């Protein structure tokens, strides 16, 4: 089934979210697609607790606060979110664009707003021999079905919440879990680590700190891994599965195949309406570039407002664009649900 909408927004970070607002007050609806499992983009994934001091009118807020407030602000426009999927393909059909996601959702729209930050978040992969060969067959970057690890010996790499949470969870399912980290300082929640340390006492879990992954061995199936403590001798661990949580990496991904003019991994736009070299495709926020571009959230908000105006003329070709203020326009008040 094809979803028809006035605009598809790629990226649910602060700039993508605020463009829902700018489209909304013009009477346009939007669907938002993001590869993460939650909205908020870098604000949520990279720095939920870090304070931001340069949002106009807000002296101090965290990434999480900002996303919460933006979500509240765009609520009246009932945006629909399509998470855990990235846009793989764009096709031009007459004056419309067809957008196809990795989840095989299809959208038809006159406007695509790319607010993709530095690209989509993908798990950071290991560049060691055999890692690719066993990926999905013993070597994993995420857990899709925890029961796959039933009665296995599992090595989990990383020091963040994902590594700690899955060590704890799989300790109930697997035969044994090794938690292996480069330092003895874990970034993940201390109470989870404490629970893991308790379980380690009965031998279900073994914590190995100051170790790094050095080799992956096996013929038809993954048999063992080589790990190294500091620069000492290599140790061999016999395991059934490895799960590596080395964080997420931002990748431009399929965006580079859409025929858009790029400069240094950013999309070139004009500053009149933030349209790219393709009509109906806009780029705003960190992913766009133009002379004088500043990679700030506040710049992205401005870019979204201007892009939305052009989106209006494309989505409503028979209507005149009338500029209105939110302070005085009864039409905008109605759209915002203000009585």
């Amino acid at each position, binding site marked *: 089934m094809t979803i028809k909408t006035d605009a598809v927004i790629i990226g649910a970070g602060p700039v993508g979210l605020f463009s829902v607002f700018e489209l909304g007050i013009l009477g346009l609806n939007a669907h938002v697609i993001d590869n993460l499992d939650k909205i908020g983009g*870098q604000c949520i994934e*990279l*720095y939920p607790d870090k304070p931001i001091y340069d949002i106009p009118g807000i002296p101090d807020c965290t990434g999480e606060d900002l996303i919460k407030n933006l979500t509240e602000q765009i609520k009246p426009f009932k945006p629909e979110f399509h998470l855990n999927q990235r846009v793989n393909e764009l096709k031009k059909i007459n004056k419309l664009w067809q957008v196809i996601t990795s989840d095989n959702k299809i959208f038809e729209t006159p406007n695509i707003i790319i607010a993709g930050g*530095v690209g989509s978040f993908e798990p*950071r*992969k*290991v*560049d*060691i021999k055999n890692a690719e060969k066993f990926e999905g067959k013993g070597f994993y970057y995420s857990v899709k079905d925890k029961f796959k690890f039933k009665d296995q010996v599992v090595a989990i790499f*990383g*020091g*963040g919440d994902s590594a700690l949470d899955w060590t704890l969870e799989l300790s109930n399912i697997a035969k044994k879990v090794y938690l292996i*980290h*480069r*330092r003895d*300082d874990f*970034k993940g929640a201390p109470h989870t680590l404490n629970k893991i340390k308790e379980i380690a006492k009965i031998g279900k879990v073994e914590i190995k700190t100051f170790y*790094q992954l050095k080799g992956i061995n096996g013929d038809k199936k993954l048999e063992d891994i080589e790990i190294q403590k500091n*620069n000492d001798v290599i140790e061999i661990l016999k395991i059934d599965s490895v799960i590596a949580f*080395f*964080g997420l*990496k*931002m990748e431009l991904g399929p965006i580079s195949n859409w025929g858009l003019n790029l400069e240094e*991994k950013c999309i070139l736009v004009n500053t009149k309406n933030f349209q790219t070299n393709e009509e109906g495709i806009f780029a705003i926020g*960190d992913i766009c570039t133009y002379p004088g571009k500043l*990679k700030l959230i506040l710049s992205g908000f401005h870019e979204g407002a201007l892009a939305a105006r052009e989106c209006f003329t494309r989505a409503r070709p028979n209507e005149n664009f009338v500029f209105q203020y939110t302070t005085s326009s009864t039409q905008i008040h109605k759209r915002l649900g203000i009585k």
Partner: protein
Amino acid sequence: MPKIIYIEHNGKEHQIEMPIGFSIMEGAIKNSIPGIDADCGGSCACATCHVYVDEKFLNKIPKAQESEQDMIDFVQDANEFSRLSCQIIITNDLDGIVVRMPKKQS
């Protein structure tokens, strides 16, 4: 202006001068030196500007903050000389600093 020497993984050396206050990462990007990607633009959020700092200069740089250590967890082949070059601000003390780039930014 302080001199900075970047050595690529293949041994190729690049010497530049950079005003104080900039980061080692910015020096590489502005001079198109390969081996430092800096995907996040210097906000200590991506770990693609990983370098190994020459031992002689390691003590002249303020210790890595927790956020930098957390990012270094994600790089391959990290060692005690590993730093993110976006977090190393050039000072007069660092004149002549040598940084080596890893085989690949992860």
